[in-house]
């Protein structure tokens, strides 16, 4: 990475009538392998390196990027960003919240460096996972196993004096399997993610998890019965708790969405000034506390400083059932009279940083999972989900169980076929009466932005219990 060109671009930008400028450079080594039904379909290896310039001038923002590392190109992108900022001709001038300049270097360590593991070993380990699936007693006719490894070096500099260098290795696996039994099929998707080195692969226990998924899908086909529609109690496993926290707490608490900046794509939020929900409004029971925390070491959504150079910290989104703190970047923070809480992230140098979650999860309680279930006369235990979605104000959501069981008199009975909860954010979190202590995380890729930016994150939480919800 040629930091002198970054510094040159920043100096050149300073010569213009600007309120603020930053240059963010990124060098990313990428390796990607894909196995399709046990065959290596392709192995991709590439390096992507470039930088962007973001300028605030006359209350407008301009952004330009390039992967050409020359001083002439640097001047060209600064000129372009400056021109775009001015052509916005905004009446409501954009401002950034005041923040201190930072000079630092940070990185994520690797016990076993990704770059030291040869390609052959990487391929072999995924082939072994595939072999375990095919040598198992369950018929898994379609399998896709993908691995993506990214070594990302960044350098951030702004006109306020910040200079931040970082290095983050990330590894992720994406698996999709189809189980066929008795002329029927069921499918499962699993994602694994880690910030760190190749040691992740062992930690994931991916093979074991996929074989377990295959067994579960077989049980769904051969043993599951439909749930009787009606009001019942529901225990959500951590995977279901996590997706609900992400969709119906993390997303609606993004301040850019609240302010309307995502209105034509990901939408707005049921939370808005002057509406029924705002900071201080109850959205769930006392036992519901949902946080977003980028500082969990080696988490998939880990970062120490965001892409505006702000130090990361835990954010309490819903606190004891009350709407507490939005996710902010410097622009939204200024608009709502507060400080950034380091939620600005970008997937690449050629994409603007926008407000994003990192690792969103429900804080644990003090009960065991068994204690959640043993009190229930009738209910459903939804361990994992398949189809899910939520409306663009983040209020009406639906989760369909993949692995689920009937609960009778405090005991788990037979598997349940595709139980559905379709409810509102308020009803969901207001129905929670107990939270267990078994906190777990799942890796996910969160979609937002235009162009779309799929950003690494964790969803998570413990098992939680909901009373009197409608299931079908």
């Amino acid at each position: 990475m040629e930091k002198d060109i970054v510094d040159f671009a920043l100096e050149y930008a300073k010569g213009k009538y600007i309120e603020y400028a930053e240059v963010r450079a990124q060098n990313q080594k990428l390796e990607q392998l894909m196995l399709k039904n046990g065959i290596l379909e392709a192995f991709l290896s590439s390096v992507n390196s470039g930088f962007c310039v973001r300028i605030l001038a006359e209350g407008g923002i301009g952004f330009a990027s390039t992967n050409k590392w020359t001083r002439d190109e640097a001047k060209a992108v600064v000129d372009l960003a400056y021109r775009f900022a001015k052509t916005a001709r905004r009446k409501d001038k954009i401002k950034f919240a005041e923040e201190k300049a930072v000079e630092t270097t940070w990185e994520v360590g690797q016990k076993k460096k990704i770059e030291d593991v040869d390609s052959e070993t990487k391929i072999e380990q995924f082939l072994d996972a595939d072999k375990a699936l095919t040598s198992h007693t369950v018929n898994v006719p379609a399998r896709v196993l993908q691995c993506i490894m990214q070594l990302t070096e960044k350098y951030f500099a702004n006109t306020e004096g910040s200079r931040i260098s970082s290095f983050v290795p990330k590894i992720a696996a994406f698996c999709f399997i189809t189980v066929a039994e008795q002329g029927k099929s069921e499918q499962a998707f699993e994602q694994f993610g880690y910030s760190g080195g190749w040691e992740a692969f062992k930690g994931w226990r991916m093979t074991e998890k996929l074989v377990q998924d295959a067994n579960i899908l077989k049980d769904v086909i051969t043993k599951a019965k439909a749930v009787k529609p009606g009001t019942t109690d529901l225990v959500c496993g951590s995977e279901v708790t996590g997706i609900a926290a992400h969709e119906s707490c993390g997303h609606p608490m993004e301040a850019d969405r609240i302010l309307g900046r995502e209105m034509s794509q990901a939408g707005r939020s049921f939370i808005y000034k002057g509406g029924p929900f705002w900071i201080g409004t109850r959205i769930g029971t006392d036992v519901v506390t949902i946080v977003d925390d980028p500082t969990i070491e080696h988490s998939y959504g880990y970062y120490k400083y965001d892409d505006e150079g702000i130090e990361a910290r835990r954010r309490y989104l819903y606190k004891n059932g009350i709407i507490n703190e939005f996710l902010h970047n410097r622009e939204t923070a200024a608009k709502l009279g507060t400080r950034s809480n380091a939620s600005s992230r970008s997937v690449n140098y050629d994409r603007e940083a926008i407000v994003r979650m990192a690792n969103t999860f429900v804080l644990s309680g003090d009960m065991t999972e068994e204690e959640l279930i043993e009190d229930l006369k009738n209910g459903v235990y939804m361990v994992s989900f398949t189809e899910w979605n939520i409306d663009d104000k983040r209020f009406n959501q639906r989760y369909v169980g993949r692995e689920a069981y009937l609960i009778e008199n405090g005991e788990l009975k037979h598997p349940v076929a595709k139980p559905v909860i379709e409810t509102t954010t308020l009803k969901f979190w207001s129905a929670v009466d107990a939270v267990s202590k078994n906190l777990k995380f799942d890796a996910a890729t969160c979609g937002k932005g235009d162009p779309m930016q799929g950003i690494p994150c964790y969803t998570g939480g413990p098992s939680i219990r909901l009373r009197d919800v409608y299931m079908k």
Partner: protein
Amino acid sequence: MNGVLNATEEIVKKAKSLGADEVIAKTTFGKYRRSRFSNNEIDTTVAWNDYVTDVALSWKKRVVATQIRDFQNVDGQLKQLFGIAKVSKENPMFGGFAKGKFKHAPSSADRKIVELEDPSEYIFGAIEAAKREAGQDVNSGGILLTKFEDVYLVSSEGPIGVDSRSAIEFSIRVFSQREASGHSVECSSNLRNFDPSKAGVEAGKIAGLAKNPKVGEEGVYDVVLAPLFAGAMLGMWASMVSAFSVMIQLSVFVNKLGQKVASDIVTIKDNPAPYSVSHRVFDDEGVPIKENVFIDRGILKTYLHNTSTAKIFKTKTTGNAGLVVPTAWNVETDVGNMSKDEMFGGIKRGLYLTNTWYTRFQNYVKGDFSTIPRDGIFLIENGEIKQSLKDVRLSDNALSLLNNIAGISRERKHVHWWGEADPPSLAPYLLIKNVHMTKSK
């Protein structure tokens, strides 16, 4: 620009000299500009220039690929790639890259798109058009994208091609009230046919009609899908007709070739024609693109193929090769014989749905899924819009919808929006019978 083609050819020659059996290199010089607006003001304009050569090579049926962006060290990157090929695993299903010399149609790209200095007037014009339709206090947001790519492709197996690809896309969502909105797009490959104020008018009209929505009711309805919604469904079906999707069972069309998968009036094709924002004259193997009818009067006729998947399915490539897997470029339905008003006229109690998002499946092979309508959901009674609705979900099956299509409009619109109405399409109004709707309880 012959220099770029020569440099691309040099990459192929170097890879061959290292021992590669087959090589494709595709160089793209892309210029992209995207203005985003909300609350009736421009939030930011993002520009990115990309200079990249995609290289795919095979060695003893081992397939590896890279993207070269550092043109000072091409040799080093190719050697590294070839090194990976040597420790990689054989792909017995790799059928080679397309062979032969092909004649490509001339590009019809509009270079004026890249020369647009300040496209913000397009945005302000469309916002004003929306205000004229739905009132001065409406709140609009959206994007304006311009794209221009020069593409140079050289394959060791014969194909050589030069193409230019241009697009201009405008998307506007207009809120007349907090929960009343309309959305429309204007998409074109050239400036001649581009009028974003039309999108402003349409979005404003829908937003005006959508005022004071009531929560909808669960049930089974006959529905009319507007082109933006129909485009999302066409994209869903087209992605499932890629041979790759079929092979990994990410498709409702597995083992259904030659079978009836839709009602008799349904003919759907892939056709990256000159009007389309994804127009092109060759695919990523250098094979000339063509029109591929994949559902013909209800019968599934073909999957979309590259050379390798075509060999597996004992057929010929359809010109849909992406770098690794086959993909649909631009989906079209054949022209129908109804007007939108005629569709409405036949409905005693039904729904008119103008847009959707967040489509997710329980099981792709079975096709059970749900998607969430937005931006104008209307109850139709006796052929007329009676009430604006909200908070309903379409929860049905991908094959059932195809089989229940009872009407296709004469009018079609070129639509592309975000990740929802994607890939781009030439989408009609669709009348679909017996569609299941659900809601939160």
